[in-house]
């Protein structure tokens, strides 16, 4: 191999050297080199370099797959803070810091229960009026530095809505030792911030300055500001105040301690103030948050700054959290990562992928922070039980005195664990490109959860313990698995009954034992004739042996049993062979024709697919109803088959159950519908192919191969590609003819607006009823054909009708087969489409739609040439004394009336 390789490279050189360019000169050296290089890098069989080998091997070991690795690299590059931004910030920050440090000292003391300070500063104090009764005296002590902290300082920030955290340490002198109680600390802190903001009001460096409260915590404001000018397009600033750890004794804020005296709280004057009330853990945590900030930041810096992979992992985790809207701050997630580093679960030698994966595994499985919390402080976790008595989730910081997860409610914690478990599941699923659902897809409440409950937080606010310790902590959502659902059981009785009846019929047929005849004729027409003979026989026997009314046809048999008519058809593989057969030069060849494909779908592929979908239905009871809803939705927008075939709808619905990432499979049909709409709306059908592998029948290689074939045009590629393991030689057979590109585009638009409608309805306007989703718009169509309502079948299934449970009649028909499958509208549509499909498209709602909407084809109104083969519906018109031809619109509209005689009520033409 090596030898051969050398040889080939030598020969390449020879060729290169012998090259003479157009001018008869040898190409210059530089060009020559380039050429060689190109040749070398192009060849798949070149000798690998050490770097390349390393990379290829690394990918195999350290990353899920190449694709995953490349995607990780791309996303990291995308969210990385650009050098330009950094430069701009650094410049601005230097000026800003210089300015801030010029803040004047103020020797005056202010009583904060009065308005003297705000009046002097000409800014409001960022603290609620309910704290007016807190009395304290404030004196401004100048700070000495402004620091960059947070993710920007740790180099793991996300360059989307980039906000850089700045921090000022308030000098310990600002507070006295008793300021820990009754919100004095908070009040002084607010005053301090007001002084700074007043100073910042006077500079041009800053625009749009306002107070803000992290997580709705009304007692610890921060200052949000935007740099002036164009800079604000690059970043914004959050200025936070913290204090020296030495300011207060940490143990004063242990969760056991009370720092809100009852006397103060209930405004009882002159009562023994020695009375200490119950513990105030949340109040304590607010203060602790400021106290411990510096220590933890130091720790993070020490561990992370030089650990590239850890930083990358943190960025990935942050993206993942943000897509899920989980209320876990970057600070907390960084410290969680740090904790796992300290407990040796992860290290910087691991790849970012491995780190993230391990963090997820750890989060999903091992530790029950609600019962046995974790601590960054190894030496002292004796007091951890105290925290458990007061907080749902416990994660102690490096001082061991503060619960970093003090704000986290059990709901968020559960969500974190649940999502972590899901994430690991997605990573392990080789069939999907898990990167996209993990990091690129926003997970919305209404698509993720089966139930969305509302109104809880309002109740909490009205409680007498008025101060908003809780903010908006109480979660809006609750997850419930499928146990309690609102599923309407549609026609359950009849369905069940129908199933047993089918079985009975089949049993009857089996008893007939007409057996497998080897002597079917070799001519398709004769074959069909023989099938008809079988039909005749079966009908006769069923009638004689079981006294069932039957009606044989050439192609099928109708049988009446228990008031239901069954249609039986004989399927035999030979028919398919005969249809495909063609004789060429005496050799028999087999070719697919339109007819053979249809027969194959009906008799071979469909039963397999049915089996698989039935399996899916038993696994996920919401599947069937989801399909019903989807078909109804499509149909209500006049896209009944053939525009959007039933089987494509069924497969699309199956896709959200088979590939539920980034969520669980839906347990409610309504959510199922929302997910399908989501899939329809947000898939780039141009590029993506959906692979539905129900029973792990397709290998990854097969899938890759198919992808290649589709993309290279080796096999016909419909505009919506959805492949199952049962498609045989025709991948994506079910969507081969429809939907068309136009219909797909329309469905996507409709799905998008439907999703907006749902989101607005459910989350903003608090409407439960989203039936409006099913109301079509008739504007935009050229002609609308109104039908006689009395002749419209399935009127009872219209969306605006109250659903009724249809019961079987007491005494079902027994003697004569009633009229079945007589559907005048379908007949009408069939004729319209057969005769006028070159001019127009026809749309109808199968479920009781009373109109047929018509859309002229784009070239409908153009002038045409008269040609023998192309004279359909043309009428002569005179244009500038010349005879031209045009489609005779009026005549066609009249034709609609003619061939729909008796059914058409009225035709309106939109001009």
């Amino acid at each position: 191999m090596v030898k051969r390789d050398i040889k080939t490279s030598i020969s390449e050189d020879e060729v290169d050297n012998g090259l003479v360019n157009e001018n008869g000169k040898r190409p210059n050296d530089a060009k020559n080199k380039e050429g060689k290089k190109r040749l070398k890098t192009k060849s798949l069989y070149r000798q690998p370099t050490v770097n390349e080998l390393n990379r290829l091997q690394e990918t195999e070991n350290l990353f899920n797959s190449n694709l995953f690795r490349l995607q990780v690299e791309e996303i990291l590059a995308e969210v990385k803070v650009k050098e330009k931004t950094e430069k701009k910030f650094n410049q601005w920050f230097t000026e800003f810091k210089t300015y801030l440090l010029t803040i004047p000292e103020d020797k005056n003391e202010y009583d904060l229960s009065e308005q003297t300070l705000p009046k002097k500063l000409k800014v409001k104090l960022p603290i609620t009026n309910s704290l007016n009764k807190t009395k304290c005296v404030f004196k401004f002590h100048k700070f000495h530095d402004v620091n960059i902290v947070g993710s920007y300082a740790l180099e793991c920030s996300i360059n989307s809505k980039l906000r850089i955290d700045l921090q000022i340490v308030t000098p310990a002198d600002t507070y006295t030792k008793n300021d820990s109680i009754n919100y004095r600390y908070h009040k002084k802190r607010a005053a301090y911030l007001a002084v700074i903001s007043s100073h910042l009001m006077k500079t041009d460096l800053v625009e749009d300055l306002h107070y803000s409260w992290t997580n709705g915590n009304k007692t610890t404001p921060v200052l949000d500001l935007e740099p002036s000018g164009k800079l604000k397009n690059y970043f914004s600033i959050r200025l936070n105040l913290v204090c020296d750890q030495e300011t207060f004794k940490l143990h004063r804020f242990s969760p056991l301690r009370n720092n809100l005296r009852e006397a103060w709280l209930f405004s009882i004057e002159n009562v023994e103030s020695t009375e200490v009330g119950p513990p105030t853990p949340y109040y304590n945590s607010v203060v602790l948050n400021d106290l411990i900030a510096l220590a933890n930041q130091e720790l993070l810096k020490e561990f992370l700054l030089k650990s590239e992979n850890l930083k990358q992992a943190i960025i990935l985790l942050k993206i993942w959290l943000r897509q899920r809207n989980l209320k876990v701050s970057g600070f907390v997630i960084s410290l969680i990562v740090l904790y796992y580093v300290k407990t040796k679960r992860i290290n910087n030698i691991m790849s970012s992928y491995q780190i993230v994966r391990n963090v997820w595994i750890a989060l999903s499985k091992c530790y029950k922070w609600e019962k046995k919390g974790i601590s960054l402080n190894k030496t002292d976790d004796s007091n951890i039980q105290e925290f458990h008595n007061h907080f749902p989730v416990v994660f102690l910081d490096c001082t061991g005195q503060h619960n970093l997860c003090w704000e986290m409610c059990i709901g968020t914690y559960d969500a974190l664990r649940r999502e972590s478990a899901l994430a690991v599941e997605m990573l392990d699923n080789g069939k999907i490109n898990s990167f996209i659902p993990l990091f690129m897809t926003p997970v919305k409440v209404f698509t993720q959860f089966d139930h969305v409950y509302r109104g809880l937080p309002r109740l909490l606010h009205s409680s007498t313990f008025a101060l908003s310790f809780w903010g908006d902590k109480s979660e809006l959502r609750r997850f419930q698995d499928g146990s309690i659902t609102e599923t309407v059981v549609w026609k359950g009785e009849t369905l069940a009954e129908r199933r047993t009846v089918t079985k009975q019929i089949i049993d009857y047929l089996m008893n007939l034992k007409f057996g497998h005849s080897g002597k079917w004729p070799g001519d398709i027409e004769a074959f069909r004739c023989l099938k008809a003979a079988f039909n005749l026989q079966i009908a006769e026997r069923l009638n004689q042996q079981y006294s069932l009314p039957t009606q044989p046809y050439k192609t099928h048999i109708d049988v009446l049993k228990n008031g239901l008519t069954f249609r039986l058809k004989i399927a035999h593989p030979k028919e398919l062979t005969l249809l495909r057969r063609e004789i060429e030069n005496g050799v028999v060849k087999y070719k697919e024709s339109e007819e053979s494909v249809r027969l194959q779908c009906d008799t071979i592929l469909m039963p397999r697919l049915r089996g698989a979908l039935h399996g899916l239905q038993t696994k996920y009871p919401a599947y069937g109803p989801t399909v019903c809803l989807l078909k109804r939705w499509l149909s209500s927008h006049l896209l009944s088959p053939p525009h959007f075939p039933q089987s494509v709808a069924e497969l699309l619905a199956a896709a959200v159950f088979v590939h539920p990432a980034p969520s669980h499979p839906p347990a409610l049909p309504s959510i199922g519908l929302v997910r399908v709409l989501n899939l329809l709306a947000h898939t780039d059908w141009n590029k993506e192919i959906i692979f539905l592998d129900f029973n792990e029948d397709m290998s990854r290689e097969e899938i890759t191969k198919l992808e290649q074939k589709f993309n290279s045009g080796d096999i016909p590629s419909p505009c919506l590609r959805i492949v199952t393991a049962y498609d045989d030689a025709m991948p994506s057979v079910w969507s081969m003819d429809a939907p068309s590109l136009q219909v797909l585009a329309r469905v996507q638009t409709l799905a998008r607006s439907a999703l907006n409608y749902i989101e607005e309805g459910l989350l903003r306007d608090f409407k439960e009823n989203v039936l409006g989703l099913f109301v079509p718009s008739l504007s935009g169509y050229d002609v609308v054909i109104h039908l006689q309502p009395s002749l419209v079948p399935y009127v009872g299934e219209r969306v605006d009708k109250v659903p009724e449970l249809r019961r079987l009649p007491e005494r079902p028909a027994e003697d004569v087969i009633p009229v079945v499958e007589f559907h005048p509208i379908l007949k009408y549509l069939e004729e319209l489409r057969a005769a006028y499909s070159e001019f127009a498209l026809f749309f109808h709602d199968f479920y009781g739609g009373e109109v047929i909407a018509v859309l002229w084809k784009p070239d409908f109104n153009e002038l045409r040439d008269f040609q023998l083969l192309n004279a359909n519906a043309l009428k002569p018109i005179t244009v500038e004394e010349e005879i031209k031809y045009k489609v005779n619109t009026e005549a066609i509209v009249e034709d609609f009336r003619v061939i729909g005689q008796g059914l058409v009520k009225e035709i309106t033409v939109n001009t």
Partner: protein
Amino acid sequence: MKTYKRAHDFKALELKLNVDSRSPHTIYFTEHSVREHTSDRPSGKTLFIVNIPPYVDEQGLKNAFRGAGYVKSVQFCLKPAATEPMKRSFIQEIDSPAFRVAYLVFNKVVEVDKALKLTELLPLNNDKHETKVGLKKWIEDYNGSVVQAKTLKDNIETYMKQHDAEVKQKEKKEKQLEEEDEEGWVTVTRRGKVENFARTDKVSNRIMGKEQKALKEKLQLKNFYTFQIRESKMKHIVALRQKFEEDKKKIAQIKQSRRFKPF
């Protein structure tokens, strides 16, 4: 009513369904002239019409040209073509409505000339004939589709009889071929005395493909020689490289559509 003429002599007239039809289609017709006339479209007596609306039936068209004379026969075709011999088929499909062309055969040559000079066509419907359309047609179609078991049986028997006769005839013909002809040649057919296999591409493929494959597999020693081991290693690298290239392509695609902006 206006009439229009075109360069190649098509006459255009409006074809009404009823007397009071307001927006009729325009049909175009001319004398049917081809190099070789068939007996069912005799030269001089046949009118060739294009753009016949979908619902028009034979009697209707006869009615329309009643002004020119008696129409002997009407043939509808989807496009202008020579008459095809009717293929015998067991299941006759109902023609779905479409714009068609028609060949109208008159009794006399004068009638064609007269037709070409018409200024107006009569409506398709008259007191005696009404074109079947809409609900009435569908009901009739449905009722027509339901046949008595007896009729179906007769149908089947007639067809099979005919079929069997045809098959027999074919066999006879083949048997004849089997016999030595004057020069001593024998044609080999399916039904000959010599055992043979079906001549299908599938069979030949199978024979050729399988044998070759089996041979190859048998002769191959895997990972035996050093060069083989090297080769398989190289193959592995090549596979990895290929995958890498493909993944890169995929990334490029995703990059294009989503640009890797997570938010």
